């Protein structure tokens, strides 16, 4: 899946797309995507001056965007909101020139809430990993759906 198809699939727009290509997609289960990090990206002016580091939260965002595509029913445009991030570790700085491989796998689903394990790698090294959950606002569950409500 290339950039245009990703933009068609996600509610996001440029410049807030953090996956360039979806390499593998098993809907409802897992996905693999890549993000090419270039020196041109505007946030490097401030993060940090003279020391560009790809923000760790954008790695989480990249995982969440891929997860949105994985979790959405086929043919549906996902509208998910990140709801929690747990045990996320940032193990190595990502810098211009790196190609980040993002992998997410669904670990639980209950109604409109989904939980994923995510990992970001550069080459053979893991640069970030952790878990996060999202609420699919377009689905039957809704953001306020409690298990007992």
């Amino acid at each position: 899946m290339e950039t245009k198809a990703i933009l068609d699939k996600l509610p996001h727009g440029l410049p807030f797309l953090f996956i360039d290509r979806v390499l593998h997609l098993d809907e409802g289960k897992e996905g693999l995507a890549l993000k090419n990090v270039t020196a041109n990206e505007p946030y490097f002016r401030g993060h940090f001056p003279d020391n560009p580091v790809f923000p760790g939260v954008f790695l989480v965002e990249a995982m969440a965007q891929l997860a949105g595509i994985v979790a959405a029913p086929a043919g549906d445009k996902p509208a998910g909101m990140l709801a929690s991030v747990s045990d996320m570790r940032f193990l190595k700085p990502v810098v211009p020139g790196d190609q980040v491989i993002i992998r997410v796998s669904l670990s639980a689903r209950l109604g409109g809430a989904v939980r994923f394990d995510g990992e970001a790698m550069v080459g053979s090294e893991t640069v970030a990993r952790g878990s996060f959950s999202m609420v699919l606002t377009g689905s039957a569950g809704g953001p306020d759906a409690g298990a007992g409500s």
Partner: protein
Amino acid sequence: MSESQNLTDRVKELIVRQLRLKIRPSDIKEDAMLFGGDMGLDSIDALELVVGIEKEFGVRIADQDVGEKVLRSVSAISRFLSEKGIS
């Protein structure tokens, strides 16, 4: 301590640990409504509990209707686990 009491205590410990609650397991009443009531947990907590129950007891809750019934209270979770042969 009876087996069912032991299971109830394990469930309470799991809830506190998995949801990182700032209370003691013994503070949770067995019949207290976990969601939308006494405890004030939300749908993401429910998801975390599903993950925790699978990890701790090897029992999967895949269906929302089952989840709504099972995650109602500590006693409901314990009863569900007993029915699945967990003691």
